[in-house]
């Protein structure tokens, strides 16, 4: 038995509306995206590096000679 589409199926598809974003606005946003990505990268890499150097200076070096 073939599955028939639900009688109300077509009613559930929202009507097509044009995207509210115009091309100029999109281009402006796309130009700002790299700055955001860069800021996020700088922040995360900076925090990671800070944690590494804190461990290095306050845990690793004071523990002293080994080899």
């Amino acid at each position, binding site marked *: 038995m073939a599955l028939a589409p639900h009688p109300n199926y077509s009613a559930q598809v929202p009507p097509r509306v044009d995207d509210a974003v115009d091309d100029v606005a999109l281009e402006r946003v796309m130009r700002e995206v*790299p700055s955001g990505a860069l800021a996020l990268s700088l922040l995360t890499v900076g925090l990671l590096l800070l944690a590494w150097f804190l461990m290095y200076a306050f845990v690793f070096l004071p*523990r002293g*000679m*080994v*080899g």
Partner: protein
Amino acid sequence: MRADTEQDILKTELWWTALVTAVVTAIMLAIIYAGLVHHINPPSNIETVDPKTLHLTGEFTEGNLGTRVDGSQITSRIVATQFAFQPQCIVMPANRTVTLRFATPDVIHGILVTGTNVNTMIIPGYVSQVHTVFTKTGDLLMPCHEFCGLGHSQMWATVRVVPEDEFKPGPDGRVTCDAR
């Protein structure tokens, strides 16, 4: 920062590459500094031993294990087996250069001494050797840190660091935890 053209994207990528190169260089310099100035180096002893006869002949026979003073040399020998260290406890003086020597007759083990930079693998067929100076006194935990079987989590020993003036070897040059 712009991403209008290929050129802009390339510029950003090169900029980021330079930054990451600087980070890696800084970390490498810090590691070299620790090695050269503070003498913190990875244990790099390459010395073989026959794991089949480890307990029968030579340095790692039962009577020779533990801490021994030989002139100005303070050496502790420890055998790591599934799933215990022999001996369970070793005595070390504070603020003296000491040598730890490890061997195993069975599988790969590893040790670290908590609160210190002492950390090495123990591989069948090789002697692992670590030189260090313990600065804090007290009982330090030395667990096996390389999964070696079902009893791995029960495998640990104690490093008893005592003040230098309380570190008194017996007539045979030995110092044991029991004698204290």
